[in-house]
């Protein structure tokens, strides 16, 4: 039982109530530790997916290259997409949610700490299960979008697609559970005085993303359940021979897949909405507009899925409607861009690495956004979809947007998490190498695509004019890889010997900067009282309401047990019924153990 007597302000600072050792990490329910777990796991998968990308680029460096055989290539681009989106970018984002949201809203933890641990284990087990397919006869090779009916047992024999279904079912459930938890946390656990229109932008975007997750993942879940039944029990959901329609999968997938884009990019928008004001020494320009535009982007994100399907032949009416809604999204997105620039305007900008990455995001996302507007037009899209033009577009969005935003957040909050700065000199090297690397990699892809190079092709012939663009992209990918290595070196070095940072090293305005770096297990000695939007810049954190006792939840291994049961159950689908039953039994037992475990000693 971690019970901490209220102390005079400051006395609790730096006092760690953490136990050490691996067991303490496995049973942790502390949002900060779970955040670190998410972050480290996400970084590992980022490297895995990066290596996959590098192999893809090496294969495409020259026409007719034979480095990889087609089956391997198809598995690599499938796993690269899945891993980057679901196991790298989302978990790194989740790492930020976990670590920061309770700190930003002045709470001691999330609403359901054990559920939070459970989400993490589900994500990890799902990711490991899917990646283990490389060891058991081959990874899925039908693309992350896995269009039916290529995924049927007839056209995708072997277990690759089964790993896809089961791994994503686990990870998806983890995402939904986590999102439910954050919705309750953000709505219910705010410090006194922290009204919704005072909540920091990063937390706001977390809330929007959480709603997107709980609404977008279920259709996908149903899609993979249908696919599972088609493959294992001979149903006809996506089977044309039985009257089923493969296009149903495309709808279910993109009703999930398009909001997923915003699930991945909005956290980055949230991050730079914190970074830019801090380093410009000015409050965020048009705070309510930035909030509402984020909400609107999320909302509209559910009405545009068929813009991924313009070539399907849904008819001019459907295509017009989806094109119109898609174009509308450009407006709130543009509004965000202008508000960020207006925040910098008239400010006193300090170009620390975090700010460089934030500005880089605006510059790069603009390119990805504009190419997005180009293929919101269905006729133009008919030439662009499924080509390298689209690959260029979404890498400008996902690397130029999301990843640069996440890097910005890493440099910004690293001092809060570790009490030390990331090295600024290495950080600048990291930024410029990344900036040059991604532009060399992705900009030529626009031309390769417009000149007729389709995606998902393991090779291309000489003579179509693709050679130069591809070679340039491969060189750019190499530079990006070097940039990532510089970052890793910086991370490891600074962890050990970075310059020490105080509670508020950048002069930030939000509540997380009011507690020590790293924060104590209970986050705040006293629950802060908030009286404005930028509390640390204006009137500070108000005096504590009263003496308070601090109750922190106990560590628990039940989340791990239940998640382990879920993993066993999923793996059992490939092994046999007894294993399924074992997994179910472990899950049920674990849920009872969990329900009757005393939370507070």
């Amino acid at each position, binding site marked *: 039982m971690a019970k901490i007597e209220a102390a005079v302000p400051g006395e609790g600072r730096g006092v760690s109530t953490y136990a050490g050792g691996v067991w303490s990490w496995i049973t942790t329910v502390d949002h900060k530790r779970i955040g670190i777990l998410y972050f480290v796991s996400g970084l590992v998968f980022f490297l895995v997916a990066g290596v996959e990308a590098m192999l893809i680029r090496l294969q495409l460096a020259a026409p007719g290259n034979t480095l990889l055989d087609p089956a391997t290539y198809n598995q690599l681009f499938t796993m690269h997409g899945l891993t980057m989106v679901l196991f790298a970018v989302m978990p790194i984002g989740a790492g930020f949610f976990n670590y920061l949201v309770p700190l930003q809203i002045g709470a001691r933890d999330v609403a359901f700490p054990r559920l939070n641990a459970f989400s993490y284990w589900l994500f990890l087990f799902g990711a490991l299960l899917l990646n283990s397919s490389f060891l058991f006869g081959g990874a899925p090779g039908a693309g992350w979008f896995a269009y039916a*009916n290529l995924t049927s047992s007839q056209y995708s024999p072997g277990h690759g697609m089964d790993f896809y279904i089961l791994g994503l079912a686990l990870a998806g459930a983890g995402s939904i559970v986590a999102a439910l938890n954050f919705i309750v946390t953000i709505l219910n656990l705010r410090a006194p005085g922290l009204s919704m229109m005072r909540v920091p932008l990063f937390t706001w975007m977390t809330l929007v993303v959480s709603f997107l997750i709980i609404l977008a993942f279920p259709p996908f879940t149903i899609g993979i359940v249908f696919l599972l039944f088609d493959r294992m029990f001979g149903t006809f959901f996506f089977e044309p021979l039985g009257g089923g329609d493969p296009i149903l999968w495309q709808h279910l997938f993109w009703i999930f897949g398009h909001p997923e884009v915003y699930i991945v990019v909005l956290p980055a928008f949230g991050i730079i909405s914190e970074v830019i004001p801090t380093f410009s020494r000015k409050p965020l*320009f048009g705070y309510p507009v930035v909030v509402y535009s984020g909400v609107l982007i999320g909302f509209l994100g559910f009405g545009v899925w068929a813009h991924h399907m313009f070539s399907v032949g849904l008819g001019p009416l459907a295509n017009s409607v989806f094109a119109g809604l898609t174009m509308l999204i450009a407006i709130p997105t543009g509004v965000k861009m202008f508000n960020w620039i207006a925040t910098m305007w008239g400010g006193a900008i300090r170009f620390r690495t975090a700010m460089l990455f934030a500005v880089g995001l605006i510059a790069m996302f603009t390119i990805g956004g504009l190419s997005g507007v180009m293929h919101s037009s269905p006729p133009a899209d008919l030439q662009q979809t499924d080509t390298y033009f689209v690959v260029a577009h979404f890498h400008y969005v996902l690397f130029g947007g999301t990843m640069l935003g996440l890097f910005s957040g890493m440099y910004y909050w690293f001092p809060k998490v570790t009490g030390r700065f990331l090295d600024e000199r290495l950080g600048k090297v990291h930024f410029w190498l990344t900036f040059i690397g991604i532009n060399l990699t992705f900009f030529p892809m626009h031309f390769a695509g417009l000149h007729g190079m389709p995606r998902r092709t393991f090779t291309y012939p000489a003579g179509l004019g693709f050679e130069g663009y591809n070679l340039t992209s491969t060189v750019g990918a190499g530079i990006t890889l070097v940039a990532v290595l510089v970052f890793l070196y910086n991370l490891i070095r600074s962890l050990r010997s970075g310059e020490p940072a105080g509670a508020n090293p950048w002069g930030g305005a939000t509540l997380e900067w009011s507690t020590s770096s790293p924060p104590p297990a209970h986050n705040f000695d006293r629950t802060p009282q908030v009286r404005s939007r930028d509390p640390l810049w204006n009137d500070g954190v108000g005096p504590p309401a009263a003496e308070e006792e601090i109750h922190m939840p106990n560590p628990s291994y039940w989340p791990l047990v239940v998640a382990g049961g879920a993993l066993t159950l999923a793996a059992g689908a490939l092994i046999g019924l007894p294993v399924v039953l074992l997994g179910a039994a472990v899950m049920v037992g674990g849920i009872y153990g969990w329900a009757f475990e005393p939370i507070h000693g």
Partner: protein
Amino acid sequence: MLSLVVLTAACGGDFPQSSLRPQSDVARSIDDLFRGIFWLAVGVFVVVEGALLVAIVRFRERPGAERPKPVHGNTALEVAWTIVPAVILIFIGVPTMLTLWRIDRPPQGEALRVEVVGHQWWWEFNYPDLGVTTANELHVPVGHTVDLRLRSDDVVHSFWVPRLAGKRDLVPGRENQLWFTVDSAGVYPGQCAEFCGIAHALMRVRVIAEEPDVFERWAELQSHDAVEEPGGEALVETGRSIFFGAGGCISCHTIRGTPAAGVLGPDLTHVGSRSTIGAGVLRNTPTNMASWVKEPHKVKKGNLMLDMGLSDEQARDVAAYLGSLK
């Protein structure tokens, strides 16, 4: 600006599969639309990146400067940068809709109908009005509208010849339509654009546009049964006997006018008249044909054609026979 320079430079080069070098009515209207949107986007790009550059240069922190004024927002500005993009979108949306409703409806007037069937990983073309069936090379007359009806025999494919039209998917259980009128004679390469399995990258297609009289002669020739020349070369004779016998070729391939009536692989009635084999993977030469029938998986991994275990000589003979089917 960089994009501009590269784009202009790129147009000068030789890009036989480029969507930026349209050669049909449909492709040209898409290209016109795209160019309009492109220049608007360039304008927005310049404004946004320009504002960003000015901001980061002008408002760097200077030593000794006071803390900036805490401006929280400006309603007029917010309204402005909501309305201006909306107006720009109208300039994109209206031409988009006009083009969309022109190309995404059945063709007007008389059109040559062709049934396109997607297979892993080759294309079947049937001309129902001409009695012609061929594969992987679509012959069309210049200046005459071609009306493609797209179906799939297995998984989802997408027909894409960038210089002639945008993509259109071939979906099992559905029929799709795509049409265009080619401007001038030539060979226009394209390929499957929807991921369809192992050999997706090698599912190529060539559209051969010919002057109407040339096309008519081609169609006339193709509509006939295979020309069996009695007493041809010895190689051809042996090749024929292998094709109909030990080779087992007839279980998958059709040669009209002979007992060969398989439907799993491409129709070979006039295979000797095609310029490529293996869905555009190899030029149609006797040597290439021999290596293809001997080891189809060496050239095109994953390919569903069976390796019949032919010897070098047998492969050479079968190739000779196939080459004689003009």
